[in-house]
């Protein structure tokens, strides 16, 4: 009798042990820190955050139960982002997500101990990674492609009379410089004059716009840059005022009234970044994850802006657009 009782106790204990162990492991709450480019009020920022959350949920994380995400919103200069990083690090995140090159640069020192996923331009030249295929350090992520030439082509297609194009660039942004060069090459082929307009402050924006508008048949190319993106309402407003057709790099401009944008969908990149964060949480090393470039590019056209500018959109163009905003 005693032997049987012992036996059943032993068997049930042996069977229940793995369950207990499994349950134990599930209860640990993981921690992720996110440095967002846009402020919380910005709908684009919300889109990106949502895409990130959804990407994680798809991979089995339940936010609040086994995962905690700290969002740090806002556009800022390097100093601000550094203090933000310091604060975030205090809360001991296991992975950092940095949106924009500034955030990534600010997070770089912390990245020595905390794996960091960036969504930023030109990681190699910025020194985040050794190579795109093998990052080699504790940072990896997603980068945008320079679509300067294609943007110019699109601009010329939409507004054939355009003869002079200003490329608004942030001189501190190296990828903007690449775009400028691409635009210059395209401009030659398209028989257009391309001018680089370096902008650091708001008055410089107005000055650049004025400069381009001073001569007829002007156009605008606005590549991706956090500063520029932060002031998109201003830029779009000015472009409308000066009746300049423009092709932007980001959809958010078009949403705010810009004519058209051609670029990678950043929220999609955030979704993919969620995949990387998931892998890192499951033990993958950041050095093993290659830096990825976007695979999908969207053409977004604002019909109202087109009407306002008097830009005639061919049915073909309309057919080719990925999104039409009214």
């Amino acid at each position: 009798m005693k032997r049987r009782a012992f036996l059943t106790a032993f068997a049930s204990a042996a069977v229940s042990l793995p369950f207990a162990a499994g349950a134990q492991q599930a209860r640990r709450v993981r921690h992720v820190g996110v440095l967002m480019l846009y402020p919380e009020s910005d709908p684009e920022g919300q889109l990106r955050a949502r895409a990130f959350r959804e990407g994680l949920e798809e991979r089995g994380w339940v936010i609040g139960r086994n995962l905690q995400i700290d969002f740090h919103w806002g556009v800022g200069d390097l100093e601000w982002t550094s203090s933000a990083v310091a604060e975030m690090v205090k809360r001991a995140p296991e992975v950092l997500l940095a949106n924009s090159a500034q955030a990534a640069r600010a997070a770089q020192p912390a990245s020595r101990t905390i794996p960091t996923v960036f969504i930023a331009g030109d990681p190699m030249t910025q020194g985040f990674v050794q190579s795109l295929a093998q990052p080699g350090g504790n940072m990896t992520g997603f980068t945008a492609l320079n679509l300067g030439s294609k943007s110019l082509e699109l601009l010329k297609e939409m507004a054939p009379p355009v003869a002079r194009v200003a490329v608004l660039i942030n001189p501190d942004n190296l990828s903007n410089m690449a775009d400028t060069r691409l635009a210059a090459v395209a401009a030659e082929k398209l028989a257009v004059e391309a001018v680089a307009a370096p902008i650091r402050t708001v008055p410089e924006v107005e000055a650049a716009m004025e400069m381009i508008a001073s001569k007829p048949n002007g156009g605008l190319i606005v590549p991706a840059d956090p500063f520029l993106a932060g002031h998109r309402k201003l830029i779009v407003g000015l472009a409308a005022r000066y009746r300049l057709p423009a092709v932007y790099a980001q959809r958010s401009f078009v949403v705010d009234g810009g004519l058209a944008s051609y670029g990678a969908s950043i929220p999609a990149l955030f979704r993919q970044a969620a995949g990387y964060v998931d892998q890192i949480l499951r033990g993958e090393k950041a050095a093993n994850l290659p830096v990825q470039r976007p695979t999908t590019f969207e053409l977004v056209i604002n019909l109202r802006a087109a009407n306002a500018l008097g830009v005639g959109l061919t049915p073909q163009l309309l057919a080719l657009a990925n999104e039409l905003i009214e």
Partner: protein
Amino acid sequence: MNDRFPAAGADIEIGAESSARVRRRLLGKYVRLLVAVVSVPLLSIGAFGIWSSYQDHKSALMRLQHEQAEAAAAKIGQFISEIEGQIRLVTQLSNSASTTQQRRFELRLLQRQVPAITEVVQVDGDGREQLKVSRLAIDEINTGTDLSQEPKFVIAMATKVYYGPVYFQDESEPYMTLALAGPRRSGGVVIAEVNLKFIWEIVSRIKVGETGRAFVVDADGRLIAHPNSALVLRNTDLSRFPQVQRALRGDHGIAPEPVRSVSDPLNSEVLTSHAAITPPGWLMFVELPAKEAFAPIYSSLLVTGVVLFAGLSLAVFASFVLARRMVTPIRALQAGAARIGGGAFNQRIEIATGDELEALGRRFNSMAAQLEHSYQTLERKVDERTHQLKVANLAKSRFLAAASHDLRQPLHALGLFVAQLEGKVESAEGAEILVRINAAVDAMNELFNALLDISKLDAEVIKPSLTKFPIQTLLRRLETTFAESAREKELLLRVVPSTAWVCSDFILLERIMMNLASNAVRCTDCGGVVIGARRRGDTLRLEIWDSGSGIPDSQLQNIFAEFYQIAGPQGDRRGGLGLGLSIVQRLCSLLDHRIEVTSIPGKGSRFAILVPLASADVAFIEPKARAPIIDEPCRGKQVVVIDNDALVLEGMRWLLASWGCHVVTAPDDRAALTAVAKLGRLPDLIISDYRLSEGSTGFEAVAQLRSALGTAIPAFLISGDTAPERLHEAAASGFQLLHKPVQPNALRAIVSHFLKNDANVSCDAEMKI
């Protein structure tokens, strides 16, 4: 007679030991048998069940995996086919004579429909590039680049479709060239660069169990899609893996055994299967870690194991109980038999199993009853016989006593008269005759003493007092005693000295050895006698060897019988009554010393007495050999002698007077009283015969006299009666009792003794022979 049963009991004791082992064996045997009967089929069925379920599970797993691989392959194949389809649509459109702008639009539309295509090129029928539309760079129109020699053009033109090898752009993006030719040669070829990252998405989303994965390998064995993109970007070559080799060979059978994982070769063993992705000639692999794959098997194994174990323990438990129930009645029988064998015939075995064992138990019981009955009968017979023997023995002793008593009286007187005569004879002839008469009287005294000894021993009046003493003292006395007689017969007497100490009664042991030595000397005509002591363990063997005529085996038992004498070669009697050895035997049994006899007729005999050894630490005082005390304590003392035999009285009076005593004689105590009264003084000693006339005893006479005179005058008794009862009475009364015939010297010694310490005579010291 009692010897037999203890022996039987001893056998049973030995039997009990081995039967204990046998008892355990039976239970164990039954338990093992029952357990084997249950467990063998149980285990074999269990094992077979496990094995067959394992096989089933494995084949089900493999089938499932294969289907998963097929499904995954289909997904990828479908993806490629869709792209192909879209491109084909475009090639078909290229038939019509359309403008470059239209063509451009078609190609851009293609790109919009198929996000995977990053770049598409229209080549005319001669291999010249007509149009290039790109997502990233500016479209190029009519570059005129000659692609006529390129495999992508040539093969597409030839076979309508071309699947290029996988290459990496900027080391991080996998691409494939897909070229399709139109239905007409003039249509040329549409070449698209397909970004295979889109395949990565699909591959990562394929679910294979919980921890399994799917990956794609191209026709050269290179990894082109894997959930872990880093592996792909490292341009991993998997052609070394056996499963990949097999698949590349076209062997699409199911591989049942786990292999090293492609993804993480160091850690896991996986079950893998593959399927072909036909359009591009790729292979889709699906791997599932063996641990996860076999987890259900392992858990079912565990469950089965647990159940088997529980079943087994139950079986063991049940068989134990069952076997015990079977074995218990057998054990009861065994124990009962043991008890009966041990002599407890009144025990009965209780078995109530209702089967043959119960019948057996009942048989045992009836057998025990029979044994009990016969044993009781036997005991009764034995008791009867013993009683008879005792009675006979007692009768014999009484006869002896009675016979000797009548003979003792005149002999006693004779001794006295001879002593009287000794002082009167003057002539040499007369003296010689007197010597011979003395010798005869001595011999008769000896004989009577021997008879008395036997009576005393039979009456169990003698109590041995055990002391520790060195045997050398005894040996020395033996030597002294027999040296003379040995020399007379020209025999060699050798007494071997010994340092041993023994625990025995000195005087009785001396008596034994004296008797044996005397026999040895008497029976040996030539040769010698050797007396020695030999240590044997914790006993000492006192041995007497003689080179006499020996004792035949047939008579060895009889020599200890009374009055038995071995007839010599001449048939003469050797002297003595044949009582020596009887006394020796009785003394030995009284002292609990063993006797051994060995003899070879014609050569000699050896007698051995086994005496317990003692440690030599006790101071030993040698009892003095009794030498008659010739002293003068008798002079002037007044002695009263009471005896109903006038002859004896006369003799006693003379003897005592010759020692210097004043004697008063009387036939009974009343006469004695009268005589003493006439004397006017109290007597110093009273000597009385035991058996007086008219049935009164010497005790009463002395008592009467003492009370009449008012003092406890020292007294002792003389008796011719050697019956055991007399001896007991004497011992009980506390009076010293001498037996007729009393040697004059001995009498004198005792009289002197009494007269010397008349103040404090101890009456309880028994006189030893």
